[in-house]
């Protein structure tokens, strides 16, 4: 079991830096998730760890071993590809056995370990099938077994779930998490799906434009985004520019003054308010530190919840998500209706403007 250490890793293609000065330490047995939009450098970073991309500068260590210059076939990483990349001319068993053969494992041991690996992903009955005879989810599990059977120092998962349908995706997600936990395997998963990242990761590494924006536990990233980008990427729909005033007040660009616990007088900031943390009210209730009059612009019924867009007197628009009452029927507020929008002084968070 080994940790992964990246030190000032940079990758240039021509003049553009795809990965820019990334330093990161992943502890042995930790499940890290690289999260970010496409082109943020997360896959390139993963491929540098696997050895398929050479960093322009910086170093990569697996445990105590500096692998910066090591060729990919000597790194002992287990990579699972987005498209599974099973060998089409080999049976499932032969696919899983490949890495062990490369390690000159004795034949009887290979047979044993392949059997155990297939058992672990519940595919023991499919050993003699060809990859094309399997469904997408089964192929994914073969790819996983193939990567795990070599007992890699680190398991690398490159958007492994993006080709699966929604239901299968959440099942596989739990399966991968359970496998990782039982094997205590250092794992890095790359994804652009924040829900996936929150569900599986011990620690999330949010990346943007080749740089690390924020590192933290799922709850930490979700509740305390540090930058406008992280807030936006993790689903904070309301990002309101403004300036801190004295006494825990914050003045929005539209002129409204709201109570905001972490406001610092005179500092430009962006108020990040999750739509589900605000409440729509038919009349002012006094239950919230902030209650502002607004008008409903759009109302979208989504079953469990309804999404509203409301407009304040200044023209500032806010998104608000409300849980629907059981048996309540359609959205509670209609477009054009006068309402109040309320949130507490700790519901929102101030992040740095860009």
């Amino acid at each position, binding site marked *: 079991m080994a940790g992964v250490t990246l030190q000032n890793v940079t990758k240039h293609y021509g003049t553009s830096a795809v990965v820019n000065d990334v330093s990161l330490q992943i502890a042995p047995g930790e499940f890290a998730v690289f999260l970010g939009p496409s082109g943020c450098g997360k896959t390139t970073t993963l491929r540098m760890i696997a050895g398929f991309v050479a960093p322009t500068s910086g170093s990569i260590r697996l445990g105590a071993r500096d692998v910066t210059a090591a060729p*990919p*076939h000597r790194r*002992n990483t*287990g990579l699972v*590809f987005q498209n599974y990349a099973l060998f089409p001319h080999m049976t499932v068993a032969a696919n899983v056995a*490949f890495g062990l053969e*490369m390690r000159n494992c004795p034949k009887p041991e290979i047979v044993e370990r392949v059997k155990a690996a297939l058992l672990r992903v519940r595919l023991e009955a499919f050993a003699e099938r060809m990859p094309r005879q399997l469904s997408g989810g089964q192929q994914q599990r073969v790819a996983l077994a193939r990567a795990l059977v*070599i007992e890699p120092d680190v398991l690398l998962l490159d958007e492994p779930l993006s080709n699966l349908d929604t239901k299968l995706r959440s099942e596989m997600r739990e399966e991968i998490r359970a496998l990782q936990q039982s094997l205590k395997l250092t794992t890095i998963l790359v994804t652009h799906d924040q829900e996936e990242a929150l569900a599986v990761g011990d620690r999330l590494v949010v990346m943007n434009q080749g740089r690390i924006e924020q590192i933290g536990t799922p709850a930490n990233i979700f509740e305390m985004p540090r930058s406008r980008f992280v807030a936006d990427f993790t689903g904070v729909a309301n990002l309101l520019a403004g300036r801190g005033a004295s006494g825990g007040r914050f003045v929005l660009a539209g002129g409204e003054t709201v109570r905001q616990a972490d406001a610092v007088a005179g500092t430009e900031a962006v108020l990040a308010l999750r739509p589900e943390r605000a409440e729509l009210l038919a009349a002012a209730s006094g239950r919230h530190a902030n209650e502002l009059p607004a008008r409903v612009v759009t109302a979208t019924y989504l079953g469990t919840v309804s999404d509203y867009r409301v407009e304040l007197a200044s023209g500032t628009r806010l998104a608000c998500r409300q849980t629907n009452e059981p048996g309540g029927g359609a959205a509670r507020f209609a477009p054009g209706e006068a309402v109040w929008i309320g949130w507490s002084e700790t519901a929102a968070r101030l992040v740095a403007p860009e």
Partner: protein
Amino acid sequence: MERQRPRIGGVLYRASAYAVLAFVLAPLAVIVWVAFFANPIIGFPPTGYTLRWFARAWASEDFRSGFLLSVQLGIAAAAISLLLGVPASIAIARHDFPGREAINTLLMAPLVVPGIVGGAALFIGYLAFELATGIQIAGNLAGLLIAHTLLAIPWTVRLVTAALLRVDASIIEAAVNLGASPFVAFRRVTLPAIRPGLVAAVMLSFVISFIDLEKSLFLVGPGRTTLQIAIMNYLEWNLDPTIAAVAAVQIAIIGLALLAADRAVGLTRII
């Protein structure tokens, strides 16, 4: 009940397709048929049927040695073009380097130069080479083999490159990730994936070499002619079914090679 009018279009379409096929195959069928005629000079109608033209063709020193030389050349040209063409295809399909397009075009060039021009150019080149170095290649096997390899290379490169491009690059990375050196990954993963393309390339190279006339014209030496040139020489003075018998054998050989190539890989999908 209304008649289904669109079926007439379908029938016409099929009929014209068969007509074209018949048009293409008819000369071949006629040649094979004539090979069995008893007539001493090719003519209709057949006065009877015989196998003696095949025996006579085989008895002819020119045809026999021409046939053997053509077979040897075809096999050797296919093998050498594979040895040169596969690395070239890998470079073209897998790597991006300055001059890649130029090299690709160069490797395809023998296809666009008329065979007779290429043959003449090679002959002149060989002579210049001989003058400069004293080593003779014109008129001997080496010179012929170089020409036939040039014939085969464009097809080999084309077929193998197409096969390589269809191999998912990530399966090769997967092999390397699992501990295979680049060479082992090529042998264990890439090679099995492109095997149909290789078989097709060998078969087609052989056929292209075997049927060549123009390029070889300048390059054959005394007592060393290919089958095609032997046929041409014979035709200058004779018009008996021996020639049809030779052609029938040749059609059979080429037909089998193309069939094997098509079995290995849907040839029509690549060319």
